[in-house]
């Protein structure tokens, strides 16, 4: 609990971050930047978890643990995603999502 800062404010920050991530996810073409947008989204969720934990249920630790797990999963996801991206790059020499459409139709 931060003195003088209401919960709402933290949530607003997280929301802005979340929607920025979504904006990036929808408008970016480069696979890596898309991945980065996803990291933003995950991160904003983490902030929410932690904030709720601290402000509403300070005697419990679930929020914190969820954040930890999310970070772990984000790490996995990033690793696998980057592996895929590199593989795609090898095959198509591009990581632009619109150019990788061989399996379409």
């Amino acid at each position, binding site marked *: 609990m931060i003195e003088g800062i209401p919960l709402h404010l933290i949530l607003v920050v997280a929301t802005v971050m979340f929607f920025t991530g*979504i904006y990036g*996810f*929808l*408008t970016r073409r480069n696979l890596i930047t*898309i991945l980065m947008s996803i990291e933003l989204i995950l991160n904003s969720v983490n902030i929410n978890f932690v904030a709720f934990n601290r402000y509403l249920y300070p005697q419990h630790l679930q929020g914190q643990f969820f954040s930890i797990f999310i970070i772990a999963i984000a790490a996995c996801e990033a690793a696998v995603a980057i592996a895929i991206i590199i593989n795609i790059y090898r095959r198509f020499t591009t990581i632009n999502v619109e150019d990788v459409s061989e399996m379409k139709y």
Partner: protein
Amino acid sequence: MNFTYTVLIPLIPLFTFLFLGLASGRIKPQLGGLIGTTGLFISWILSLMTVFKYFSLEKVDGAYQQIIGYNMVWLNFSDKLHIDMGVFIDPISVMMLFVVTTVSFLVHVYSLGYMKGETGFVRFYSFLSLFSFSMLGLVLATNIFQMYMFWELVGVSSFLLIGFYYQKPSAVAASKKAFIVTRFADLGFLIGILLLSFNTGTFDFLELTNPQGAAMQTGSGAWLLGLSTMTWSLIFVFMGGAGKSAMFPLHIWLPDAMEGPTPVSALIHAATMVVAGVYLVARLFPVYALSAPVGLEIVAWVGATSSLFAAIIATTQFDIKRVLAYSTMSQIGYMMVGLGVSGYGGHDGLGYMASMFHLTTHAMFKALLFLGAGSIIHAVHSNVMNEMGGLRKYMPITHITFLIACLTIAGIPGLSGFFSKDEILAAAYHHNKAIFFIQMFVAGLTAFYMFRLYFRVFWNKEPHYHHTPHESPLTMTIPLMMLAFASIFIGYIPFSDYISSDFKPFETHIEGIIAIPSVLVGLIGIAIAWVMYKKDSDLPDRVSHGFRFFHRWAFNKFYIDEVYLFITHKFVFNRISTPIAWFDRHVIDATMDGIGWITVSTSRLIKPLQSGQLQKYGFVFLSGVIIMALVLLYAAFAA
């Protein structure tokens, strides 16, 4: 008396056909020929036996009996209708047995020499056997459907034999033409059978032709164009007969059929198969005479027209086999006239008897003519009169036998042709004067064109031969001599003692008022031919020039072939089939393809919605969520 053994008469050729057909190429040609000939010889002996046995039977009420020698149900259609296979023995079938086996046997022997060294010698014999089998089956049929079956089989064996030289395009075309034209006629036959069986409820000849039978009374009411069903069905049946017997206007296949080997022409297209139409009408004669006199009238007129028409064309042709083919057509016209002018029973049935009599004598002398022609062709290697002449010196036996045949067909008294033709004329005289005069004129024409042929070939100027013609081998000349013998003496058989429309013998005698003019007409014809063709002169050319318009028409066979060609090619091919094929591709199929095309294009239209791009999906998803949230909020506030 037991006639079961008669089954063997057709079956033996069937077995030789199967054996030779399967063994073709594996046995020596001469052996194959001998097997075929032996088979036919046995059939011939059996047929002769049957003839003697049958005519020596006790008559019942002074009439010959009709005997079912053998019968089995072959296929059941319904309770009433079934096709039987069997052997039907009565005077005309016995007579036909004799004619068919005799000519067939002699042709078999003749072919041993004539076809020697040809490729497909065994195949030839197997086809001959097939033909003999089918023809004998046709002759012995107990019911009209059995007859139809064998009718088709003789058609196909004729097709196979005409197309024997299958690498020759003209032979292939001729065989096709023969089959299709007769097939078209058979369509009429089949419709006739269907109508007939529908009315009478039976296929069986015994029931159909019984004058007191129930079948005779059915279908007599007027049906179509004022004629009864019975009449119509018999007209249709006659259409089949006319096709097979090459009656005008279904005759076009017969002259072309001469593309086949000459023994085949002798057997099939002169002596046996082509008279099947006559036999068919004779078989159903009581029905024609008693319930469809109009049908009989048509038979008479078709016969008269054909005989005149063919005789005119025959005078202009140069191919000796074609001359003989038109002569055959003309003579069959005679037989049809004989049937057509006949009445039923007793002396009224003179025409019927005469027609059968003429059938027999014609088979002998026409086979002789064809085999003689074959002998000539064998020696000269040509069919065309212009390349022949003066052959009497080189081929004495052929010459003498050919002369006998020509005299016979011209109706010179003492020879068989005189008796039979005279009786047909007598019957026509009493029945229909117009037909009588036509036939009288045809008799003169016949004598003229036969002797035109005879003088052109055996006398006249000798052309330059590549190698000197020589007399044919014995296998060929012996049948010639036998047939010449038959042509002379067969006329002395008292035919009316054996064959009559009601199976009861009756008396006939030669009427001077008919016999003398007919002989005179024949002699005049011979005399004209003698003047024009005995020596090489320009007289024939001048005569034909004198009648040039008429000559050109006759020479081109009155353009009937062209009419047919027009109908088949211009009409059936170009006006029916091609449009149908087009319609099928471009209308029906296109409709089906169109349905597919509509489906595919609809799918194309909505395919971009499923672009596969996650970001688009995400955008739509987001928008959807927002819109739904707004809607829910609005609803919440509104409430």
